[in-house]
């Protein structure tokens, strides 16, 4: 009881990494994640202040990955809510299966339901399907909740979540019941900055911009993912990758789509399948496996010849 009333302080360090092949609570394969110290601090602050943490950054810089890493290190259950353009705020709390209830009512009226079924449908909460936030509020353990790409939904979507995030309660109109969070969940919200979020919503969040990792950190990330590969290959690949990125930044400015960390990881995965000498040889020539890094025809034409050998 005491534990529920006064939750002990959780602390994320970013040091505990999953073993290869380890699976998360949702069955997803976990991979190592190396956060920057600033990011770790922001996460801890969000946990301590019980505020949602809004993460922004380039696509593919590991915003979503962070959340699974946090849930894994703290050993907490993890609920994800992947927002779509048609999502409504209510979807994250609960959905009410009105059609199912109607069908059951019809079946019951025609006397085609068993005794057990009848008892089941007596209870109106049978037709409620809880969303990610709804589940997290009802849990007795602290839950890590991810609201992914919140900017994809309608512009009013974030505003509809204010009360839920602020006071951690909501009302299920269909059964006239109020759900209050037993224990405040740790909420992460990611945004790709496609749309501005409303001020009222921003006010309730902590904010962190996930920066693109430095070249040392990139090497570390690659090494932690592919521990068997040689340092030389990693360094070569990272420097080649950064060269490409630098070039892209020069051409497109800060706003354009640049090759991201996740693309680097994919690219390296292809590279390390080859013997080391061959991979190194490929790296020094024309950009190998360019399809992994260059995602548009223009990029393809422009950066493919950008080899060291010319």
């Amino acid at each position: 009881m005491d534990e529920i009333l006064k939750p002990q302080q959780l602390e994320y360090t970013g040091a505990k990494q999953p073993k290869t092949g380890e699976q998360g609570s949702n069955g997803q394969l976990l991979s190592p994640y190396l956060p920057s110290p600033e990011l770790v601090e922001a996460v801890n602050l969000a946990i301590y202040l019980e505020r949602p943490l809004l993460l922004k950054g380039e696509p593919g810089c590991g915003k979503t990955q962070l959340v699974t890493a946090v849930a894994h290190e703290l050993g907490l259950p993890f609920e994800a809510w992947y927002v779509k353009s048609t999502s409504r705020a209510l979807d994250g709390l609960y959905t009410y299966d009105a059609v199912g209830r109607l069908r059951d009512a019809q079946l019951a009226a025609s006397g085609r339901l068993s005794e057990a079924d009848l008892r089941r449908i007596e209870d109106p909460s049978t037709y409620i399907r809880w969303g990610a936030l709804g589940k997290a509020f009802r849990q007795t353990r602290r839950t890590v909740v991810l609201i992914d790409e919140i900017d994809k939904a309608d512009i009013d979507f974030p505003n509809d979540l204010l009360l839920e995030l602020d006071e951690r309660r909501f009302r299920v109109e269909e059964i006239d019941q109020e759900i209050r969070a037993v224990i405040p969940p740790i909420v992460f919200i990611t945004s790709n900055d496609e749309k501005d979020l409303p001020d009222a919503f921003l006010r309730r969040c902590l904010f962190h911009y996930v920066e693109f990792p430095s070249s040392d950190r990139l090497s570390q990330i690659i090494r932690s993912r592919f521990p068997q590969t040689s340092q030389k290959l990693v360094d070569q690949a990272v420097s080649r990758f950064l060269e490409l990125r630098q070039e892209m930044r020069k051409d497109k400015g800060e706003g354009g789509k640049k090759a991201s960390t996740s693309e680097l990881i994919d690219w390296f995965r292809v590279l390390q399948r080859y013997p080391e000498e061959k991979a190194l040889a490929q790296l020094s020539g024309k950009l190998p496996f360019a399809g992994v890094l260059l995602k548009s025809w223009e990029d393809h034409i422009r950066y493919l010849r950008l080899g060291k050998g010319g």
Partner: protein
Amino acid sequence: MDELPLLELFTRLREAGMPLGIKDYELALRALQGGYGLAVQGATPVENRAALARLCRTLWVRSPDEQRLLDVYFDQLFSHEATPEALPKSKRRIFQGVIVSLVSLLLLGAGVKLWLTYHPLDLILKNLPSQPTPSPVSSDAGSTKTAGQHASITPASQPSPLPPPPPPPIWIDWSLPLVLILGVGGFGVWGFVRGLLKRGTDPSSESEPNTNLASELLHETEDEIQLAQAVRQLATQPDRSRDRFVLSADYLPVTQRQMKQSWRHLRRMVREGLAVELDVEMTVRQIASDGLLLEPKMISPHVNRTELVLLLDQDGSMVPFHSLSVRLAETAQRGGRLGQAGIYYFHNCPVDYLYTDAWHQEAEPTSNVLAQLRRDRTVVLIFSDAGAARGGLNFKRVSLTIAFLRRLKQHVRYVTWVNPMPKTRWAGTTAGEIARYVPMFEGTRQGLDQSIDVLRGRNVLNSQLHEVTQRQGEL
């Protein structure tokens, strides 16, 4: 010094227009109590500062613009605290200034008295032309300007002006130290008076670099709230009577944030797309008529289907309002889901071509643009002074504009006009004439809100009624 931590920074950020509330401050306090952003054992002051800055950034900052704002204010506030001797130093400087000026005043008085007793006025007037000669020497001896030494300096600096014989020796004897004393004394008095004046007009002389920085930031972030802030600050400081005017290139009656909020209202919900929502009412009605449930009735969900087309007048009399129109375009594009918010530019009045860029380089025939508009969802907002900035009535412009509006109204249902000039300036100008054919509003918050109401199909009746009554009045 028993103040709340970070309060100064918080207040300054708020004054600079960052949307922070008491809650945000409480949050910072709680974080500090929780040991975040505080000194770690063995960390250098620089590291401690960085930790505190990081805390503030995570708690209060939500965009790159705000980050810049925070960085500037943070540096201002905490670089002062990092060098605690800064304040005593300035006090010492003032003290020194007072002493120096008092001593030089004494010297000046004594020198003048002595001089007058030895040299009556007629002698001085007679010798006046020769005065320039000793001045280079005095600047030479200026480095040794202590009071008691003046007797010993004179023989030392004598040899060089000796060769020319005409000036009487007594004159040289006295003129040299006198010029020296006068110089030192005058300088001291001037410095002292200046210091006093400065202290009088500006009680916090340390905040002077701050205002400079704020204005730099103004250019950098182009944030109009700060401009408003600067105006307000000047208005509340009565003793700054000299610089009551703020010179700024921007005219910003509506802030960016207000624009965003206004755009948010521009939405027309249309049922569209796949039928995925249960239409309870229809289903119940169906059951009632059929006697049993055959199938649930589904309906398409509500979606916001508004496509905004912005027509912006560019160049000419609109130059002062360019920053406003850029903002309007930016907020419309980013702030809301307005379908494909098309932005077109024109000069004075749209005729055969509209331009897709502000520099009138890429033209598109007006008929093409109009053909793409969809009557049921597109709305058009025109931003132009309609000749009100320059004044005068231009019939050609009126007829061209009205012809365009007529064409436009065949393609879209709602058209509105935002005029950056105040309403009082429309009467008797081209704008006044055009305002009879299209709902025209001022470029203020209210005006923008009203024009968005028009685009939503509200208020239209009022403006049309207004139009009708005006026409009747005309007849």
